[in-house]
């Protein structure tokens, strides 16, 4: 893992001390809220419905045990004993006191973390495949490039006042676990015909008010060219992007209005200008960074005990069936720890849970953890012989829910329980759906199904790419939930289609239940997933299930 060098350390400390001064001046009245606001936003401090919120970046979702332990410490000392993991691999604290925030940032700096550029019209936290460095299907670990992008974009003088926020995601393989096609820039590690490693660069994806799937700007950018190429993209956007209308300011609209050919031409032109100026210095940095991401020394050991435990313990077996993914090393597995216990808030972990996860990473996980955009925590490198011990420790703190990828593994944004922009709540809907399907004991029968919920059109809950998406709206002063169907956030990214009129707060969970039970009767076999059945049958039968009265009318 990357460890801060003296430069990073000094930079982050300096920012903490500047912000300490700004907070002091705000509290003693020398700064008004309007004057203070840009400073707090530069440091990830938002104002929500009930309190300030501090958004801390977890770069490309990677943490070591000491960092996770420090997140637990922050939750205990400055918050209400928990934190919320978000769809951008960040963690949010919902209840900090303004006067404590400089101390929080200082404590974060102690473990090489910060909240810089987690807000504002800048390049935000670079996200990555949460299985990076561990996935069996990976060409190359995408995190060194993500770290290079982090260093380049942090406090980049040209890109502190972009037309709008700018999000970059990186993945190391064809399978897309980082939703790269819904980012301003999506980067995928690829090989060309000469078998050289390079990058496919996708631009102009995004969800929100106007969801768009990114377009390929280049099929292959060489390793040496990637950073100047990205700088060329952002620099073209910085000049061309609209500043007259906030809703038309993202690069997806710039691309849409100007066309991919023009953007390509401008990017290439800019690239020719700036590429020579880099002079290879970025490649020197990259080489050092790559060194720090060298894989751990995987152990070679028998997995007989694991196989026996699976046979002997059905609950453990069920957990291993849903929560493990294939690892590149023999005898290893990737563990997804579900932060989606039935009836709990998706993505919320208590300080005690964080400490247990940190300890497990120290003991059994080569000191590494990941935060996934699906709001779960990953132990990327676990030898199978240690799985039973991990499962047992997780179970003791309610972290052993066997539901990864199933109906209760719901993405939900904070919605109107916290977020000032929300038009409706999302958390209670997620909690009720999970509780209901747990009562029905149906979720394993239903199989892979991704439900994603956003509390407003900004779509932080990725509802457009949920197999079932739910969008909370305010219809004439009442919470109303609109369903979209058939979305997909993987390499076959699809924006879901709106099913029809929305449902009231008391109707949405029954509607989802109808939909899912209806799918069970429509599918050809147990193997046909919800998304596959939807793709085979189209929306009509699913709409009939959602709106039975309308279907009856049509039939009459």
């Amino acid at each position, binding site marked *: 893992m990357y460890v801060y060098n003296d430069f990073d350390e000094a930079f982050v400390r300096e920012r903490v001390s500047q912000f300490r001064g700004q907070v002091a001046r705000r509290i003693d009245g020398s700064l008004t809220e309007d004057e203070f606001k840009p400073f707090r936003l530069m440091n990830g401090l938002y104002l929500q419905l*009930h309190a300030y919120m501090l958004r801390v970046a977890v770069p490309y979702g990677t943490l070591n045990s000491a960092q996770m332990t420090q997140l637990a410490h922050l939750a205990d000392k400055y918050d209400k004993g928990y934190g919320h993991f978000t769809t951008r691999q960040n963690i949010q604290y919902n209840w900090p006191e303004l006067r404590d925030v400089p101390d929080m940032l200082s404590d974060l700096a102690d473990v090489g973390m910060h909240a810089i550029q987690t807000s504002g019209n800048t390049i935000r936290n670079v996200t990555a495949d949460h299985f990076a460095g561990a996935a069996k299907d990976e060409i190359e670990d995408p995190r060194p490039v993500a770290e290079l992008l982090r260093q380049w974009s942090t406090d980049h003088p040209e890109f502190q006042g972009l037309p709008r926020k700018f999000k970059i995601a990186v993945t190391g393989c064809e399978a897309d676990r980082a939703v790269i096609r819904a980012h301003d820039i999506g980067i995928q590690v690829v090989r060309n015909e000469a078998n050289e490693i390079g990058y496919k660069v996708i631009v102009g994806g995004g969800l929100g008010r106007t969801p768009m799937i990114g377009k390929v700007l280049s099929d292959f950018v060489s390793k040496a060219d990637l950073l100047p190429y990205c700088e060329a993209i952002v620099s073209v956007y910085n000049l061309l992007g609209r500043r007259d209308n906030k809703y038309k300011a993202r690069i997806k609209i710039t691309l849409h209005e100007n066309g991919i050919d023009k953007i390509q031409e401008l990017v290439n032109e800019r690239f020719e200008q700036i590429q020579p100026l880099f002079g290879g210095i970025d490649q020197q940095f990259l080489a050092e960074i790559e060194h720090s991401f060298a894989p751990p020394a995987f152990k070679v050991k028998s997995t007989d005990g694991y196989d026996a435990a699976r046979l002997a313990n059905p609950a453990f077996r069920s957990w291993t069936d849903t929560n493990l993914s294939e690892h590149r090393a023999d005898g290893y597995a990737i563990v997804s720890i579900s932060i989606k216990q039935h009836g709990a808030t998706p993505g919320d972990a208590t300080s005690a849970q964080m400490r247990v996860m940190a300890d497990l990473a120290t003991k059994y996980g080569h000191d590494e953890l990941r935060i996934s955009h699906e709001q779960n925590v990953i132990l990327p490198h676990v030898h199978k012989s240690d799985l039973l011990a991990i499962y047992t420790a997780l179970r003791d703190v309610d972290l052993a829910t066997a539901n990864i990828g199933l109906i209760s593994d719901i993405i939900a944004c904070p919605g109107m329980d916290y977020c000032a922009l929300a038009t409706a709540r999302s958390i209670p809907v997620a909690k009720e759906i999970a509780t209901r399907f747990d009562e029905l004991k149906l979720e394993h029968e239903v199989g892979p199904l991704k439900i994603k919920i956003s509390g407003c059109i900004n779509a932080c809950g990725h509802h457009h790419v949920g197999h079932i998406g739910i969008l909370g709206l305010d219809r004439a*002063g009442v919470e109303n939930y609109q369903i979209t169907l058939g979305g997909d956030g993987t390499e076959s990214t699809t924006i879901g289609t709106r099913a029809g009129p929305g449902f009231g707060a008391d109707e949405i969970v029954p509607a989802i239940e109808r939909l899912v039970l209806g799918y069970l009767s429509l599918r050809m076999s147990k193997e046909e997933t919800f998304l596959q059945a939807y793709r085979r049958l189209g929306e009509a039968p699913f709409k009939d299930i959602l709106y039975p009265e309308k279907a009856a009318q049509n039939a009459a």
Partner: protein
Amino acid sequence: MITDEAHGDIRLLEAKADQSIVVGVYLAEAKKTNNGPAPTHFREAFRTRGPSNYSHGKQEA
């Protein structure tokens, strides 16, 4: 509870000046009830309590 628009604007300006007590002030619609003024919109109703997933915020006190 303010029923006069001009008074409302003045009260808003006063509240905005109380920067060490409140931030992000705005006028919200309210109705008269036996327990005093109450918000008419669910957003402000939530703000008088706190989030629905934990008993944090004002409801905690």
